[in-house]
């Protein structure tokens, strides 16, 4: 084995009571691509932020190329030859590529020389690694894939020998991701060390030499990629909790509850995110939408729930049209029996500064049972909240407690209780178990199945393929804003994965 580019010994880091990293040991050989895999919240990003000097470890040692390194700020990391491509790009949007590349590495007080130098250096990097980008382009006018390339260029310009990429493919199309992987291979061939943080097993298997698995803040295993399997890694990632199988009976689909025809949605920059999407959901079924994050699922949900205006398309709820391109708002849709558990419960689904009972009426605050004329009926609201707390086993069982003080799982239960207990005909659920503890996941899944069995129509959007497969009666796969296929729940992970990656229908069906 080659000499270690990075060695981490006994790294600990806590945020208040949360131990994000516990006693981490890790060795990354030079000139390899090393994957670090784990679920959301396993502590991967924290560990890498420590390595990049963004945070400081509470204890432990970092060695770079065999020598102990004191990395207290990003500057120290850069000096040690470590570069990082963040999940959310650290670019100044209205600056040119050149300006972004030299920021912090200008060299001298006046810019003209450093700009000239950067220009020629970029040309060299372009030739060496195939990292083409117009140095004078303004960042906000570049597609995401190219913006990421600028981030890589920034690191290389600073002479990075070790490149850390944090969830780099989350925002990329499969073609862009492939291109990125080719670039990473090339970097490796030139002797650079690449650390790839991801929660996608496929990527690990495709391009890494070694892989380390993190779970709940600890490093549970390191393997040579060619000596391990997806199954083994998946088990290491989730621990005892192997595949989630939810007990459920046969679906008995009834009449069409929600019918979406030719829906097109653009984001705030005018980019088409949902492209001519059509589907129906019937009473008594769960329709899952699978897809890599950022392929239009969020915008689809926002449009159907009235939060985001659609550009075109017709949507029928219980056979009656909804004007999603104009006047429809979430309040009106709620009145018509469409409930929505949003992806982002911290900023959308809940007001964290409110107490529990106040959040238990959010969106339903104009329902007569919570009001006395223009006034809030506090007694009714408290009683209602108390009932939901008992029914959903929300802890602590205190409707006056600030919502920020509940755990992720209990916060999610507050949202679910609110939406489900209004007895909606259609329920749209986004990422229902993101950041939720295992016990609550089971509870939430059972609730959703119960909804289905009561004859409700459920639209489930999740990036967790397991969740989609174990809950859905039909699975739609979204890719680049389009629904590229519909499959049954028994469909294999491999086939769905290909669809999610945008491989043509027919091929995938083979």
């Amino acid at each position, binding site marked *: 084995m080659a000499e270690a580019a990075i060695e981490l010994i006994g790294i600990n880091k806590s945020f*208040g009571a949360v131990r994000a990293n516990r006693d981490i040991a890790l060795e990354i050989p030079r000139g390899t691509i090393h994957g670090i895999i784990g679920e959301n919240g396993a502590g991967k990003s924290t560990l890498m932020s420590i390595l990049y000097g963004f945070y400081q470890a509470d204890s432990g040692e970092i060695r770079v190329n065999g020598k102990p390194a004191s990395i207290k700020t990003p500057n120290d990391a850069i000096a040690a030859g470590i570069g990082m491509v963040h999940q959310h790009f650290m670019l100044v949007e209205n600056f040119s590529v050149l300006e972004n590349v030299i920021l912090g590495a200008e060299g001298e007080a006046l810019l003209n020389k450093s700009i000239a130098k950067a220009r020629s250096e970029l040309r060299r990097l372009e030739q060496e690694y195939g990292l083409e980008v117009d140095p004078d382009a303004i960042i906000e006018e570049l597609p995401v894939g190219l913006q990421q390339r600028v981030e890589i260029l920034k690191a290389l310009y600073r002479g990075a020998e070790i490149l850390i990429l944090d969830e780099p493919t989350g925002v990329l199309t499969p073609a862009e991701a492939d291109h990125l992987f080719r670039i990473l291979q090339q970097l490796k061939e030139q002797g650079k060390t690449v650390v790839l943080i991801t929660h996608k097993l496929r990527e690990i298997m495709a391009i890494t030499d070694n892989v380390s698995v993190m779970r709940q803040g600890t490093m549970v295993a390191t393997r040579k990629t060619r000596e391990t399997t997806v199954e083994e890694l998946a088990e290491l990632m989730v621990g005892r909790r192997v595949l989630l199988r939810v007990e459920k009976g046969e679906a008995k689909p009834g009449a069409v509850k929600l019918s979406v025809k030719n829906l097109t949605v653009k984001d705030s920059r005018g980019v088409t995110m949902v492209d001519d999407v059509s589907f129906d959901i019937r009473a008594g079924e769960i329709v899952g939408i699978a897809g890599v994050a950022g392929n239009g699922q969020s915008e689809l949900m926002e449009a159907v729930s009235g939060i985001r205006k659609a550009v075109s398309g017709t949507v029928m709820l219980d056979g009656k049209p909804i004007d999603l391109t104009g006047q429809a708002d979430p309040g009106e849709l709620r009145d018509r029996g469409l409930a929505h558990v*949003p992806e982002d419960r911290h900023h959308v689904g809940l007001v964290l500064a409110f107490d529990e009972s106040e959040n238990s009426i959010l969106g339903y605050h104009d329902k007569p049972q919570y*009001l006395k004329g223009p006034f809030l009926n506090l007694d009714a609201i408290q009683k209602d909240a108390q009932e939901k707390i008992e029914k959903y086993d929300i802890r602590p069982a205190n409707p006056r407690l600030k919502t920020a003080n509940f755990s992720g799982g209990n916060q999610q239960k507050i949202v679910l209780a609110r939406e489900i207990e209004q007895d909606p005909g259609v329920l749209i659920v986004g990422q229902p178990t993101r950041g939720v503890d295992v016990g609550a996941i089971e509870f939430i899944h059972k609730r959703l199945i119960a909804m289905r069995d009561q004859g409700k129509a459920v639209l489930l959007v999740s990036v967790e393929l397991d969740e989609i497969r174990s809950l859905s009666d039909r699975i739609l796969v979204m890719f680049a804003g389009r629904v590229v296929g519909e499959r049954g729940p028994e469909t294999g992970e491999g086939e769905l994965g290909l669809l999610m990656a945008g491989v043509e229908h027919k091929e995938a069906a083979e």
Partner: protein
Amino acid sequence: MSTPYAKLPAWADYGLIPLINLLVAFVVAGLVVLLVGENPLRAAVILVEGAFGSGQGLAYTLFYATNFIFTGLAVAVAFHCGLFNIGGEGQAYIAGLGIAIVVLAFDSTLPWWVVFPMAIIASALFGALWALIPAYLQAKRGSHIVITTIMFNFIAASVMVYMLVNVLKPAGSMAPQTRQFVEGGQLPKLGWLLAEFGLTVRPSAPLNVSFLLALVMAFLVWVLIWRTKLGYEIRTFGFSSKAARYAGISETRIIIVTMLISGALAGMMALNPIMGDQHNVPLDFVSGAGFVGIAVALMGRSHPAGIVPAAVLFGMLYQGGAELAFEMPNISRDMIVIIQGLVILFAGALEHMFRPAIQGIFASFSPRSVGITATKGERA
């Protein structure tokens, strides 16, 4: 919306920390007093005695406090919606115009108790109207409301100077102000109320029924914010505009409605000096009360139960400050402006300065009381 700060018991959050901030503001103000060669402790004694030591002083203190309750409430209502209405000054000034129109038309024919409700409506209407354009521009075109309301303060000043000099000034008069109101435009004084408690108040003391109106408004604001659907919507929007959108609350409507209420409250402030004391509409009658409202709202933590005492405190400073200027020639009433600035600085901009230290103290007593917000862990 998780704060970077750990939590403290509510009494420390809402009592101890504001108190410490206030104390520091006064200590710094004391240093300024020292700097001009006077004894800060003696100054404080004169201040408090001047404000509360006599019925007359108390009447003046409460008269000033009336202004600040209105403007403090105005700022606070906007704060709850996440808006900074720095335009209370201009909204109150323009409201003077509304009052002038009503009172000049009816003061000789109708009794005060008929004119007063009409004047309340006119003041609220004009104040609200002056807040409407900045509100609309914020809601519809995203123009920063802090800047537009500042601009509207200056525009209001120009409008009022023009109106008073060219339109409202009676012919032949030199002073740029309306004619003197007769009986129907004069509000009854409340000196007798203090006299009931055995205090002596001269009839000249300006405390009048608008003080009672201010207290009623404080109560109504409390009801509005914490007990009505509209208040719920205002607070939702103030904490998270995304959550408000999700909940079906219209951004445009909530911004405009909140600013109308805020402007109306600021506008009602004009009743107190105009109908309660001066009995005409002079130039510059607001004289900074709109800005004091910012300090009052910050100190009162945007809650009426905090705003009323904070307004009385500033009323005390204004009245006591006048006495102080009399006793200590080196100190004029501008001392109050400094204190005001210091309160805004320490209770507003630097409100978190002492928090880590206090948290440290609390943590050393009971480590369990200082937890961290539950949201942190999932994001690592």
